[in-house]
């Protein structure tokens, strides 16, 4: 065969199968573009100007990996459809006297073309969209200097090598398939009869057990450790569910004659039974991918949108000063010093609050606290104790504690309902967050135990602690400008790092938190971290969405070809166009929206879990997270519906 003929053959092969080839190439183009854009960011020479470069490039690297892996999955998936449809064509060619060698050469030619189109299209799109992506990244990370896109040869190289490799592997698989088959098998191809699907009870049981166990974990257990396990269980269960449980349910429906032999149900139930066997895996994949899109977008958007709230929570006031080991008689002099520093720097203190507390070393095991008075241990933590009257002085909240009751302020929720300190056991009062903890408390994981005055006394007696040496916290809002506030914080810290000095003889260990001083820096840090997670979340969301759309599209197309014959028969035996249409609609809607419903159910069950994971990394704005999750589900359902309308059109065209 002449080379020009091979090229013509390959071109016509692509054109004749364009309904399947175009989405295949489009998948290639989009994945190449996304991967290439991430790669250019990773290899950008000035990426270090982004604050917290490490977290950004870690995220980008992770994102690139995930996109790479899913590109492999999606491209192999669409190719399997392509191959199935084209087997007949290749069979016919062999019958007409085209040798396997010529077919292989045609395939090789198609491989070169599809690789070229995907890479060229993807990289071109990447180059065009680079500016937009860089703008997006700088906007999200709120970087002031504009990060200009630049051409990174290394990024280009990696993209080309990766995707050429994927396409080569696909080509080799096609070659293997063609070379091991006989022409007549290829011609018959998909016409071999489908066996009646059997109910695989073991899969039904495993599927229900998997989802049940996963859901139970998600609804009852603490996150992180069990999270991945629960996800794996649910994924496994979802596959079993679509493969086996659906068939079992449909077969039971079929057995119920008064239901089954009704005009609408008759064709729908049998059609779905037929479909579930072929598409159980596809539907389960759509479901899982949809859930992944939802989780990714909902969490990343919430994290990013929650930075402001998170920061405000961390800094309830402008200035917070903790002074340690102060005696009762010297306490007023320290307060004077603080007030003087505030006034000297041109500030006026507003909303002043203060309270005294006792800070001790302790070892904590579950809900057992052991106060360490002389030994020093590696696993000890700071443990603060204060009376409910002092607590009220600071927060204005009267806890109304009774003897033997306690309240614990801690970074994340404390799951026990009692706490034992030494010999004494207190029942822990649950109540809403009072934002008592300042940033310092949140970051250093400190515990604040609030007790009644008499309980506090008895603990002090038990451990022989001195009630006259205490810690003192002062909080106030400052009226001054940002510069004046920073000056105030520096003045308080000036004598010696980490000490506050009343005069040359009297000083104490102190800790000053100034909103003006550290807010911006800290916020930048969070924005960089959560911003880059958000940025990658958008990319991955696009990839997962693309995968969902792709699977839906191929499902509709391949079913359209299968159903076209069936519906022409039905028309001949007396089904009107209208009835056919409504049957189709009923059937597709049921098959189509089932995965979406399952995905939404997964998300609803996982909601508590995700919220807790966010809480572990310090995110507390539950209403915002609820809003983001709800919004994501809504938007996704709309997109899904739009995809349905589009692909249903393609389906109708084929069936007609």
């Amino acid at each position, binding site marked *: 065969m002449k080379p020009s003929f091979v090229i013509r053959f390959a071109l016509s092969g692509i054109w004749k199968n364009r309904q399947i080839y175009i989405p295949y190439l489009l998948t290639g183009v989009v994945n190449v573009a996304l991967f290439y854009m991430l790669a250019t960011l990773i290899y950008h020479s000035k990426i270090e100007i982004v604050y917290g470069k490490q977290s950004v490039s870690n995220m980008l690297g992770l994102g690139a990996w995930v996109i790479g892996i899913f590109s492999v999955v999606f491209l192999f998936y669409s190719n399997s459809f392509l191959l199935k449809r084209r087997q007949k064509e290749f069979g016919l060619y062999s019958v007409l006297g085209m040798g396997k060698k010529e077919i292989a050469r045609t395939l090789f030619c198609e491989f070169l073309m599809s690789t070229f189109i995907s890479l060229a299209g993807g990289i071109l799109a990447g180059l065009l969209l680079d500016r937009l992506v860089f703008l997006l990244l700088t906007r999200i990370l709120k970087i002031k200097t504009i990060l200009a896109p630049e051409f990174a040869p290394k990024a280009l190289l990696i993209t080309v090598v990766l995707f050429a490799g994927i396409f080569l592997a696909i080509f080799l698989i096609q070659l293997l398939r063609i070379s091991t088959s006989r022409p007549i098998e290829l011609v018959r191809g998909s016409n071999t009869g489908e066996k009646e699907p059997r109910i695989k009870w073991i899969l039904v049981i495993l599927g229900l057990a998997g989802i049940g166990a996963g859901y139970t974990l998600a609804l009852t257990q603490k996150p992180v450790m069990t999270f991945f396990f629960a996800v794996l269980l649910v994924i496994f269960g979802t596959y079993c569910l679509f493969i086996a449980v659906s068939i079992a349910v449909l077969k039971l429906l079929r057995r119920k004659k008064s239901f089954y032999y009704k005009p609408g149900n008759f064709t729908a139930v*049998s059609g779905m039974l037929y479909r579930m066997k072929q598409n159980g895996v596809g539907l389960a994949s759509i479901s899982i991918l949809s859930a992944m899109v939802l989780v990714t977008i909902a969490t990343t958007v919430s994290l990013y949108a929650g930075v402001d709230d998170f920061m405000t929570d961390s800094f309830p006031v402008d200035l917070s000063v903790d002074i340690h080991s102060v005696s009762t008689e010297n306490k007023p002099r320290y307060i004077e010093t603080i007030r003087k520093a505030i006034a000297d720097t041109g500030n006026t203190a507003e909303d002043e609050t203060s309270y005294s507390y006792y800070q001790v070393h302790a070892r904590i095991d579950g809900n057992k606290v052991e106060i360490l008075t002389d030994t020093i241990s590696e696993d000890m933590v700071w443990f603060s104790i204060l009376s409910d009257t002092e607590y009220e002085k600071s927060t204005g909240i009267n806890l109304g504690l009774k003897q033997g009751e306690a309240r614990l302020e801690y970074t994340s929720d404390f799951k026990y309902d009692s706490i034992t300190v030494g010999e004494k056991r207190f029942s822990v009062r649950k109540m809403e967050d009072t934002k008592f903890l300042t940033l310092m408390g949140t970051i250093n994981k400190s515990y604040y135990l609030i007790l009644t005055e008499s309980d506090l006394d008895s603990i002090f007696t038990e451990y022989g602690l001195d009630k006259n040496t205490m810690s003192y916290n002062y909080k106030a809002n400052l009226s001054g400008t940002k510069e004046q506030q920073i000056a105030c914080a520096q003045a308080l810290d000036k004598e010696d790092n980490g000490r506050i000095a009343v005069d040359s003889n009297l000083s104490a260990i102190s800790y000053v938190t100034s909103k003006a001083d550290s807010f911006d820096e800290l916020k930048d840090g969070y924005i960089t971290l959560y911003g880059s997670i958000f940025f990658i979340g958008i990319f991955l969301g696009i990839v997962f969405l693309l995968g969902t759309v792709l699977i839906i599209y191929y499902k509709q197309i391949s079913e359209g070809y299968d159903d076209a014959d069936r519906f022409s028969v039905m028309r001949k035996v007396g089904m009107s166009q209208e009835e056919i249409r409504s049957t189709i609609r009923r059937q597709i809607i049921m098959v189509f929206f089932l995965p979406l419903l399952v995905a939404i159910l997964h998300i609803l069950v996982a909601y508590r879990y995700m919220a807790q994971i966010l809480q572990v990394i310090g995110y507390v704005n539950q209403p915002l997270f609820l809003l983001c999750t709800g919004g994501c589900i809504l938007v996704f359902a709309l997109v899904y519906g739009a995809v349905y309308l589009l692909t249903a059109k393609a389906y109708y065209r084929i069936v007609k």
Partner: protein
Amino acid sequence: MPLLEVNQLKKTYVTRLGSVKVEALKNVTFSVDEGEYVAIMGESGSGKTTLLNLVATLDRPTGGEILLEGKSVSAIPEKNLAKFRRDRLGFVFQDFNLLDTFNIRDNIYLPLVLSGANHKEMEARIEPLAEKLHITDILKKYPYEISGGQKQRAAVARALMNHPAMLMADEPTGALDSKASDQLLKLFAEINREKQTILMVTHSARAACRASRVLFIRDGEVYHQLYRGQMTDDELYHRISETWTVLTTGGEAT
């Protein structure tokens, strides 16, 4: 009154761009009486399938009219056509047209289910029919599990389930071997003896010689017809063969 009357039927196909007109049927007139078994013969492309599709209301004629039981089928509004088809007509096709998604029983039930019949009634109807067509033991099987002859008998059962006014068959033996063909034709003759009207399109003389009358179509017109009269199957077969030779070699009928 004849069961079916076809008067000056015309069908012209226009290509999509409207430039080429193909006259599939020019002027076809014939009638079928109740209880008759009529075979329509013609070469490929003679317009016989077009004719069947028009009678079956799967397509609309360009001119002329079709009367079933004295009523014009063109007068039936589009939305009632499907109902008309499944209530009044039964179809048997060359390639069986059984659905792979249903077992044989459900395939046979299909027209009745579409009419909204009760499943108890369907069960009552299928039993004697399956007995007669020797398909009782394959009712639970799927189309891909049985032979061509069995498939065609299942298709006949499906066509007869609604007690149609007319059974229409389009090359019913086309995909069968000679043994299965003979069996099926015997079955048709048997059904016809029970007063079932049959209209069959074929180009096999072997199939046509079982009919009570044979119509020949050429170039979209009824060219000749043969009545069985007192002839045996074999005699009719010879007459058909002679006519067929004349028909295909282009001469005039004697």
